[in-house]
């Protein structure tokens, strides 16, 4: 058992820290979830990509540094400690890119990844539908075979980033005769500005139009934009959840930085006699460490050739519940002063409330934990 970084990892850390110190904007960018903020965050992605910091784990030919998961974790610790901007390309980098590495073609990787890394093409997800949320396999949007490709029809919803993004990826029903709901699905990429696509932004609880409904009416997708074999969409989509995605959706660095800010707030604001609040701040400190160490252990397992699989559900429930508790503690430290919506803790608090819902609700994650990690029998949901 070992908790030390290699000299090479420490050099990498120093290089990342130096770059971030020189480049992180001194004033926070406008909110990512607005048109202006979206544009500013694209520019930030381009700056990261210019010096190969956008997707460090990718091969060099796509703009990465070909480093392993441990280096990525080090980079993330530095990134969030530096107060760097949120990542507008996160959906593409943490969901689509791993899928392309596992199931895409070389042509697709070469075409899709570099502009993704530069923020030129920002990707949205197209999974949920009005009648297919947690029960994603109930989805009904169709992909119908046509000359040289597919025609997409139907409705997708809760499509993160879609209000301002360029392209989207998701699964569609290509064989309605398939015997089971998760069969006959195909994984496709499509252009949000293609003829037949209507994007209707949806206001969120935080008032920002950051996700959207997508109405698709005979949208043409060339064969070159099908990922993997037609009909294998479910397996391809699920495989991404079992490997790095479970680790890379929310890096520990983000929470270590947030816990540090919380401790600073506590030192500045708290009544020392209020040990109930002190205890919650201590729990936030311990929780960030627990998440960091859990992730390092997972990374060691992956490095040794292991699979994460359902373990990523533990990870997701933990960080999403942790994130809310941390922000609620900050709001309690501020008391009634916390209310303004653009406050440094109010805005991320509202965002944290969505965590137990998106990326697979925590109820679904707990079913997965119980059935696949503990071996409990399947039952009615």
């Amino acid at each position: 058992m070992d908790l030390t970084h290699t000299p090479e990892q420490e050099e990498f850390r120093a290089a990342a820290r130096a770059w971030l110190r020189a480049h992180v904007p001194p004033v926070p960018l406008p909110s990512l979830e607005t048109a202006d903020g979206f544009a500013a965050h694209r520019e930030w992605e381009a700056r990261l990509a210019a010096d190969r910091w956008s997707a460090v784990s990718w091969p060099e030919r796509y703009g990465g540094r070909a480093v392993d998961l441990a280096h990525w974790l080090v980079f993330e610790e530095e990134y969030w400690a530096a107060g760097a901007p949120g990542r507008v390309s996160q959906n593409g980098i943490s969901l689509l890119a791993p899928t392309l590495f596992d199931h895409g073609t070389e042509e697709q990787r070469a075409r899709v990844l570099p502009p993704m890394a530069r923020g030129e093409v920002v990707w949205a997800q197209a999974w949920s539908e009005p009648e297919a949320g947690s029960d994603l396999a109930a989805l009904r949007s169709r992909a119908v075979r046509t000359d040289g490709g597919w025609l997409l029809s139907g409705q997708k919803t809760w499509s993160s980033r879609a209000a301002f993004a360029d392209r989207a990826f998701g699964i569609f029903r290509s064989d309605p005769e398939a015997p089971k709901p998760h069969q006959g699905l195909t994984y496709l990429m499509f252009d949000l500005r293609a003829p037949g696509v209507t994007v209707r932004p949806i206001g969120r609880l935080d008032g920002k139009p950051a996700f959207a409904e997508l109405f698709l009416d005979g949208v043409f997708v060339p064969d070159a934009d099908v990922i993997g074999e037609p009909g294998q969409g479910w397996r391809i989509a699920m495989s991404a959840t079992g490997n790095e995605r479970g680790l890379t959706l929310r890096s520990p660095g983000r929470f270590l930085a947030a816990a540090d800010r919380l401790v600073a707030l506590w030192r500045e604001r708290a009544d020392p006699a209020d040990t109930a609040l002190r205890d919650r701040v201590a729990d936030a400190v311990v929780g960030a460490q627990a998440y960091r160490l859990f992730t390092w252990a997972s990374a060691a397992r992956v490095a040794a050739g292991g699979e994460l699989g359902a373990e990523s559900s533990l990870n997701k429930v933990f960080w999403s519940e942790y994130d809310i508790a941390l922000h609620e503690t900050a709001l309690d430290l501020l008391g009634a002063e916390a209310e303004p919506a653009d406050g440094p803790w109010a805005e991320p608090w509202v965002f944290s409330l969505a965590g137990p819902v998106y990326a697979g609700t925590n109820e679904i994650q707990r079913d997965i934990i119980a059935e696949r990690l503990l071996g409990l029998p399947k039952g009615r949901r």
Partner: protein
Amino acid sequence: MHFLPSDEESAFARSLDALLSAAAVPDAVRAWSRGDHGPGRALFAKLADTGMFALAVPERYEGLGPLPVAAAVAFTELGRHAVPGPLVEGAAASVLLGALAAAGVDGPAKRFLPELAAGTALATLTLPGGGPYALDADAAAWRFTVTARDELYLSPAGGAPLASTDPARRLFWPEPGGELLAAGAPVAAAAAEAGRWARLLTAAQCLGVGEALLARTVAYVRERRQFGAPVGSFQAVKHRLADTLLGVEFARPLVWAAAVSPGAAEVAAAKLSAGEAVYRTARTALQLHGAIGYTDELDLSLWLRKARPLRDAWGTPSACRATVLPA
């Protein structure tokens, strides 16, 4: 960084698990609770053969240590099997005597450590801030007491046990007086180090107790049927168990990290998380077993009763939080 148990550490855990699985530990626990130490001592003799008692003792006093990672691995297995006795206290006493020797006071180390390393004598220990009772003082050959004035005494035997909520933990008030072994700053520093070890090893024990409670409960809800289905197929049951697993799985790396780097903050974080996790796991285990879980007869009780005392021994959650975040 390879933040997982090494092959050697995993093999050590498996060998202890196998030894204890074959050793009828529940019978020894029940005998220990009645004040019959015979089966417990027979168990310790087997554990001594693995070198377990030597892990907290420096090599120059016939030990193998100090090896906090191996000790944490071992105490996780002791918890998994609900092994009784003042084993945390004996290991912490060994650390205390070793630390005193390192500070130049080596008389007590020479006198006591070889037998502690061999497992032929048991010791118990009380420290300022470490809880008021001398655990299993009637089974210990030596009772070490550090006073608030930084005096280390070899305390006399005596007194009747107080009944604990875990009858396998026999509690005694430390007897005043006895033989003064050392005093002053070296005792204070050695006691602080011993206290960290006691806290770390209790956290490791909590982890093992929690894992055992969870495994038994999962096995039970897979078998137990109501409304025509295993109760483990119901979502209310599944989700409670999922949350319980979450607590245990996120405490584990904190315990490992504290063993690798046993500083005060690391050890406090580990004890806080493992202590809270084991008590939550006990509540889950009791609830999901239903009435049968509330019986003395079912062996589950041997683990259930440990959870709360271990959560609070050698550092309550509140004390640990205060260490994590000093004012």
